[in-house]
């Protein structure tokens, strides 16, 4: 037989194997089975974008970009009857927290939050957007407030005779630069912006938790509340962990035999191998340098 024909026969054979295996995956429970409750873990600092997880660094925090995408997928999946967000987060970027909270509010199926050790600030903002909040009496919650800070090096630079040469086309273009002392007008401007974010945060918590704005305003001192205190203050609804929340949801859905699936963020085999590569090493090194520069500028977090 002509070797070309014979070789293409083997190629066809491999194609058939690939198609059969692909079809097996469809039927092997890869897709979420009927009547499922999805657990979505939200662990770490909330940011809009995070790096790729690798074998060496599997923890990358909460990326609003991907969480929103996942929330949307779960919302559209008819097999998912309810969603539980398991939160262990001290907060993070303002917009990223707001984006996730907004996505949660758009869900058209029951959704709860379970606060583990910490569900503070931006983490609490997200929790407040769910239908019901569970927490341990010892969990750290609340911390409704805004923080903005940076390290200011002007004194250190002066000590070593380093000057900050300023070239700007707008008066406030280098507002928040770590290389100069903060003038009073800039300090007021930054504080006003933070106040506006604070007011929005408080308003959202008030709407989400159906609490009077004045009450939330009183609580929004930035103080964190233990779960036991938070329940008295109506910042959470129930004491309990994931299992308790699942039982509540099963009862609400009237689905005693619901499957509980955990949506995990993991590293693919290709990423795992790629994580060792020189490219990722170099990229990581460069990212750290850029991060140092950015992290030392004025940043606002909730």
């Amino acid at each position, binding site marked *: 037989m002509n*070797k*070309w024909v*014979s*070789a*293409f026969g*083997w*190629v066809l054979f*491999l*194609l058939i*194997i*690939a*198609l059969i*295996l*692909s079809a097996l*995956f*469809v039927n*092997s*429970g*890869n897709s*979420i089975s009927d009547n499922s409750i999805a657990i979505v873990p939200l662990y770490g600092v909330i940011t809009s974008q*995070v790096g*790729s*997880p690798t074998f060496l660094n599997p923890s*990358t925090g909460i*990326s609003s970009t*991907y969480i929103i*995408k*996942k929330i949307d997928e779960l919302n559209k999946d008819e097999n998912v009857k309810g969603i539980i967000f398991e939160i262990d987060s001290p907060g993070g970027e303002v917009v990223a927290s707001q984006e996730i909270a907004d996505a949660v509010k758009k869900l058209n199926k029951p959704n709860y939050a379970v606060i583990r050790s910490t569900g503070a600030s931006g983490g609490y903002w997200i929790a407040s957007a769910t239908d019901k909040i569970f927490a341990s009496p010892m969990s750290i919650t609340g911390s409704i407030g805004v923080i903005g800070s940076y390290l200011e090096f002007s004194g250190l630079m002066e000590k070593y005779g380093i000057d900050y040469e300023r070239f700007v086309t707008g008066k406030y273009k280098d507002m928040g630069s770590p290389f100069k002392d903060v003038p009073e007008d800039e300090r007021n401007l930054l504080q006003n912006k933070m106040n506006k974010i604070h007011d929005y945060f408080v308003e959202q918590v008030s709407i989400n938790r159906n609490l009077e704005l004045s009450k939330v305003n009183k609580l929004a001192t930035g103080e964190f509340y233990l779960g036991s205190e938070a329940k008295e203050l109506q910042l959470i609804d129930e004491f309990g962990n994931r299992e308790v929340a699942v039982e509540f949801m099963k009862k609400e859905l009237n689905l005693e035999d619901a499957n509980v*699936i*955990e*949506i*995990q*963020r*993991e*590293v*693919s*085999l*290709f*990423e795992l*191998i*790629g994580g*060792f*590569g*020189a*490219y990722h090493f170099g990229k990581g090194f460069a990212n750290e340098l850029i991060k140092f520069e950015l992290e030392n500028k004025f940043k606002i977090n909730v």
Partner: protein
Amino acid sequence: MVKNLQYKIKNHPASYWKRFVAYMIDVFIIYLIIVIPFGDHLKKFDNTFTFLQADKSLFFISLIIVLLTLLYFVILEFKYKQTIGKMFFDIYVASEKGDLSLQQIILRNITKPFSIVFIIDVAYMLFKRNNQRLFEVFSNTLVVEKGVALK
């Protein structure tokens, strides 16, 4: 006779560009017959940040793609001493020591599904006179032009 054969093989290694284009053709075929059938599954996962069900489906899909990719090279080189890409350029896999065995073929192709390792493997070619990859050296194989006697 053996000395003469080895002389010919060592002096007729396939050129870089033929090997590169042949490999690109193979990659294209692998994409068509192996990656595309799993496209719907792979679409569920972002390429930099993946969510996965507890059944670790992405891991198994990746593993299947790796094994089928390896099978493509191993089956064709074992049966014909050529892949489809190599057939286009009439270049062949040859053994430096005795008959080309299945073990040699598996060893020479083992790096192909793993891009990072494969890059290191291929980079070695630049420092080797016979255009041999590192794992071709390990497996005592090389890719030769048509006309070279094949065992």
